[in-house]
């Protein structure tokens, strides 16, 4: 019954809250979903403080470990990503202080991190391989979106970029909610068809590098 109340008409933030509740009840698989959802944003955020790519990954992993340990303190007053953002910033600053390096004076606010592209410092110091991978990702996704039919492209853009709900998209596109749901799903499937080989290739490359 608790699940019914918590997930009913849930926004993505409320889905996060439900996953947090599951983690607090001892479901570590729910935390794995949160990690997979926010890993790219957290790594990008920490990369603004720590320029070394290897250190950046370690601090990002430490951030998630700290978040998991402190999950019992999360009450749901703020959004989960805002809370996670604070942990990531503090972990990155502590890492710099521990290595006798001065953290940057200008903090990256969570709202600013959502809205503005402030990662130029990371790009200056990123490795060529990482920069190539990032460009390849962007090119692949944008190319897949451009290749979508008009109604699918509009639906996925309104959802992912504008952040509108299904009801708002249905009102804007003047179609039933079920049609919106189907269009967004088909758009994701089409993009994933192009994105999956790239991600799998990166995984295979990483595995080869390990062995």
């Amino acid at each position, binding site marked *: 019954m608790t699940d019914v109340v918590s997930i*009913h008409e849930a926004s993505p933030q409320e889905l996060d809250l439900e996953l947090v509740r599951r983690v607090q009840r001892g479901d570590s698989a729910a935390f794995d979903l949160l990690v997979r*959802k926010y890993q790219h944003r957290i790594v990008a955020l920490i990369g603004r403080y720590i320029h070394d790519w290897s250190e950046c990954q370690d601090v990002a992993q430490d951030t998630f470990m700290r978040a998991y340990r402190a999950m*019992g303190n999360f009450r749901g007053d703020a959004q989960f990503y805002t809370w996670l953002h604070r942990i990531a910033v503090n972990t990155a600053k502590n890492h710099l202080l521990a290595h006798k390096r001065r953290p940057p004076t200008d903090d990256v606010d969570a709202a600013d991190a959502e809205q503005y592209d402030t990662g130029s410092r990371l790009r200056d110091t990123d490795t060529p391989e990482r920069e190539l991978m990032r460009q390849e990702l962007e090119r692949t*996704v944008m190319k897949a979106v451009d290749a979508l039919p008009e109604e699918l492209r509009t639906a996925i853009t309104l959802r992912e970029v504008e952040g509108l709900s299904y009801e708002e998209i249905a009102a804007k596109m003047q179609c039933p909610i079920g049609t919106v749901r189907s269009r967004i799903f088909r758009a994701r499937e089409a993009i994933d068809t192009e994105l999956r080989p790239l991600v799998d290739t990166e995984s295979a490359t990483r595995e080869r590098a390990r062995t």
Partner: protein
Amino acid sequence: MTTDKIDNHYHQQLSALMDGDLPPDEARFLLRRLQHDDELTGCWERWQLCGDVLRGQAQAPAPAGFADRVAAAIAAEAVQPVVQSNTARSSSRLAKWGGGALAASVAVVALFMVRQQIPDETPVATTASTSSPVRANASPNRTASPALQTAAVTVASVAVASVPRQNTSPRRSATRTQQASRPATSSRSPDRAVAVAAAAVPVIHAIASTPANNSATQRNPFSNVQINPPTARPWPRAVTPQYGAGSGAFTAGFSNERATQSFYPFEPRTGETAPIAPSEPVPQDQ
């Protein structure tokens, strides 16, 4: 429904779940499926990456396998999220103090029973119950009274029963240094449990080896009131030195005939007492 159609159905549900548009019962089942369906979990991860790229939030996408490394680190660390909500804290505190209160109440009840059974040995029982179980068992008295044995067994059993509860709730340390020292700490706990259990075993053996007639001679199982014949007690000689030793001049006592005539109205009549002859006249109250 073929496998592709089933997968397509789950993928469609996953898309709706990501946007918070999945009905609650379906969401519950899908979240459960995500726990063991790697293909669906990978789909969740790629779709999140797709959204981050579209929003420009993936300037430095995490490397492949990053989430797996985090999951492995959490599993290796075996850390549980510390829920420090007020209810959980109060419930754990209640459980902690409730166990102590339960043990104390059991000890008090055992003492009360001992006090009712044999008043003369109450100080001995009190000493045994208030001391630690290890101290009580350090020199087991094989000729101890049943009251003392009952108190000792009660205290020992409460101590043994409380050991598993203490061992099943180890403290979760927060730092890796403390976590590295956790195996040594946890290895000490079984020793402690074994020590307490071993300390309790002599008490049980002592009671098992106590002669059965010891308790049988002390108590009448068919009577709830102990009838002890009164014994003569000499007057302290230090108080009356002028009367010499062994004279028995000021010895206070009761006659033995009077002790045998003591009668408890609810006790069944035994065969030793002669039945009342029906031919004799019954004395009438004046």
